[in-house]
């Protein structure tokens, strides 16, 4: 169970989409950055637009060993 890629670099204003290819639900959660996807069911997707420069560490609320980072430049 992991995010792929585990590190992603994007530009300010980019929209990032996560697609759940697993058989169990996941979330994209970064409390500090105010990001909370809510439940992403298997096969479903969720997107967010990143509007400021930041290094965002996020995890899955259900499976906290799943961690990744997005660098917004």
């Amino acid at each position: 169970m992991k995010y792929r890629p585990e590190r992603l670099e994007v530009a300010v204003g980019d929209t990032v989409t996560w697609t759940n290819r697993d058989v169990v639900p996941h979330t994209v959660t970064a409390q500090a950055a105010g990001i909370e996807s809510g439940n992403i069911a298997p096969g479903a997707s969720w997107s967010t637009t990143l509007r400021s420069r930041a290094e965002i560490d996020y995890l899955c609320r259900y499976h906290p060993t799943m961690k990744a980072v997005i660098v917004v430049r």
Partner: protein
Amino acid sequence: MKALAAVLALSLPFAALAQAPTDPQIAGIVVTANQIDVDAGKLAKAKSKNKEVQKFAQQMITDHSAVNKQAAALAKKLGVKPEESDTSRSLKQGARENMAKLKKLKGAAFDKAYIDHEVAYHQAVLDAIDKVLVPNAQNAELKGLIVKVRPAIAAHLEHARHLQETVAKK
């Protein structure tokens, strides 16, 4: 030592298969194995006072319910009707015994028994996936679903092992 004995006892139903299971039997084993862990999770969520154990139990309910939903959808799509087998029956028997045992326990003793069993159970399921279910599944999509489920089971096992260390300290 106790945990090891539990693993052996649990792997027995899978290992004792006289014949290779058919796809309907494999579907039946998948559905049964998931439902058993959902039921145990519901009991643990209601009985445990330990936040970490409750979180784990909720994860088991969420994940194994999700897998079963997809297994049911796939079985319907393929026209495969899940069938009982000696394996699914012995899984159910083992689950009844485990639930009866857990219902008598409380507090830290409950947490330890629940988590020990979850470690043994997920290890047994992982072995069954590798040695019985994947090698014998004939339909590519059924096999594909089981392969896709494996990382979740491995993650559950890792999580349960981690909890085993924490509850042992209490």
